[in-house]
């Protein structure tokens, strides 16, 4: 009870809860689009490349004003600039050389992140007040969120969510089929810019809490998990936002209440848990559902094989209606690696064959028709 009381009244915990809830929702919602646009790696590049921007913006602020305020807006601006720059450079690199997109993005990620770490270690040796907080941007620390940080997350989050609501139809169309969208009069460059900017904002507002290294998980994982549960874009975005909310909020609260526990890793572990559950247990796309479907399919193939074999024996021997064949004969017809007798029992339950006596089986009228139609259509099963 005290904890719930704290969420509303304790300054730090309230900030943590509010800030991480919003960023969870925004990252989850826009993560769906990044996921469907196959831009997950691009998201990772933006997040990592934000680090030098943050450090440079901090340094610039320090040299200009002489004091080291960690004004979030300035840091966000710096992060956005280097984030975009690295994306821009990687697409330039792709255009002027024969390097493929994954490699060029990988290179830019390493270059920018390396630069960020380098700058951070330079700062460590100088006597600049407030420098210690910058380290938190690597793995994230939700407990450092101030009231004004939360306001910034709130404003940017609300703006991007609003744009998602207003341009829902256009975003959906563009994500599915950009050339067709363009042919309908929806400028694809403009829509690209709008969507990429939204995704970048969703990433940047999460950096302080989740950190540059693991922020990509907030974008990709909820979307990948949500895709398992639905075949409808709107539902997917809602589920993804909800997963982001749950993981962001609980992860941030857990890390804020345990000393020196960085937020990013906690959130990622929670997300992975949700993701694994989704991959395994979702009703249509889940691995277990798939496994059950495969077992059932194989069963149908076996049953069909036995039925057709019985039919062919009957044709071959020009049988009368009542003459059956033994399972032993059926066994030798193919090198069947499954239990023919068990299949015959199931076929009997389905009313397709009949047991004469002991080991002898005969097709029923229904079984005869079924076997003929299986042979006729190719690929039809029981």
């Amino acid at each position: 009870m005290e904890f719930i009381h704290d969420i509303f009244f304790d300054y730090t915990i309230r900030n943590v809860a509010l800030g991480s809830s919003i960023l969870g929702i925004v990252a989850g919602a826009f993560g769906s689009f990044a996921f469907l646009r196959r831009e997950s790696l691009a998201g990772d590049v933006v997040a990592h490349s934000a680090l030098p921007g943050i450090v440079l913006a901090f340094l610039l602020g320090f040299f200009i004003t002489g004091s080291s305020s960690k004004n979030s807006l300035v840091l966000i601006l710096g992060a956005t600039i280097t984030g975009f720059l690295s994306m821009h450079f990687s697409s330039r690199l792709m255009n002027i050389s024969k390097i493929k997109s994954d490699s060029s993005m990988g290179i830019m990620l390493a270059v920018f992140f390396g630069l960020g770490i380098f700058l951070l270690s330079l700062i460590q040796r100088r006597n600049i007040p407030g420098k210690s907080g910058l380290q938190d941007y690597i793995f994230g620390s939700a407990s450092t969120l101030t009231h004004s940080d939360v306001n910034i997350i709130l404003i940017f989050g609300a703006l991007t969510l609003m744009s998602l609501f207003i341009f829902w139809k256009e975003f959906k169309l563009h994500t599915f089929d950009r050339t067709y969208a363009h042919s309908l009069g929806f400028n694809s460059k403009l829509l690209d810019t709008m969507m990429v900017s939204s995704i970048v904002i969703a990433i940047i507002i999460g950096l302080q809490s989740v950190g540059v290294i693991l922020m990509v998980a907030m974008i990709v994982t909820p979307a990948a998990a949500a895709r398992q549960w639905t075949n409808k874009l709107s539902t997917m975005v809602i589920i993804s936002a909800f997963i982001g909310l749950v993981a962001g909020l609980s992860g941030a609260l857990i890390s804020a209440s345990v000393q020196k526990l960085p937020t990013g890793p906690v959130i990622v572990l929670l997300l992975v848990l949700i993701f694994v559950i989704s991959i395994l247990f979702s009703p249509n796309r889940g691995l277990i559902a798939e496994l059950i479907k495969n077992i059932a399919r194989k069963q149908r193939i076996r049953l069909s094989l036995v039925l057709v074999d019985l039919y062919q024996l009957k044709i071959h021997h020009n049988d009368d209606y009542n003459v059956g064949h033994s399972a032993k004969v059926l066994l030798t017809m193919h090198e069947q690696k499954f239990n023919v007798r068990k299949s015959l029992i199931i076929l009997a339950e389905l009313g397709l064959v009949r047991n004469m006596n002991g080991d002898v089986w005969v097709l029923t009228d229904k079984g005869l028709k079924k076997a003929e139609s299986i042979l006729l259509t190719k690929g039809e099963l029981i």
Partner: protein
Amino acid sequence: MNSHQVTVNNLPAVEINDLTVAYNEKPVLWDIDLSIPQGVIMGIAGPNGAGKSTLIKSILKLVKPIAGKIKILGEDYDKVRKRIAYVPQRSAVDWDFPATVFDVVMMGTYGQLGWFRRPGKIQKALAFDAIQRVGMEEYADRQISQLSGGQQQRTFIARALVQNADVFLLDEPFAGIDAKTEKSIMQIFRELKGEGKTIIAVHHELITLSDYFDMITVLNIKIYASGKVEDVYKKEIIYEAYGGHFNFSQNESILD
């Protein structure tokens, strides 16, 4: 605009003059002159890499030409955009996208709606009509990843039908589809032609060319011939355009 009007003017559906397109300095289309009259079913034929898709995309201003002028129904593309419907290649999209057949066909109404406006009852009715027209009503609520190739193609065509356009541009509508879909697409083409509409479709298979289309353009970077099937579907023209890429022994008989 009354889109059901049967065309009275004699303007060509598409008029292309001196069109040249190049990707990375390699010409894909070279000095194309082409006039496609209204109310015909025109097949654009040619070997792989002939620039067939690029021609369609140039008409739609999806690629930027180096030189040339294109008029559609006598106007600039931007002016008549709403009278043109485009059916991209099936492979151009991710069919595992979370959407149903109905969702995809609804997208055909977005062009008329423009920015901001949301589809309502009228648009839903239009989408359902189009789905019925391609014989997909049973599958309206089916997830698109569970469609066969033919069903995917019919979904795409339904999406274009919703646009109620006068000129239809299709990229390989007959590639990898079943006989039922083939028939249903041909039926729709003929109906559209009967309404005075123009169908322009990229097609790379020679054998079926003369069955599907009443006019043919033979393209391989430049235009080798364009006109009525009986004038264009000739051995020497096809040989010349297809060069070494054409398997003579198999298809020779159909060209005689």
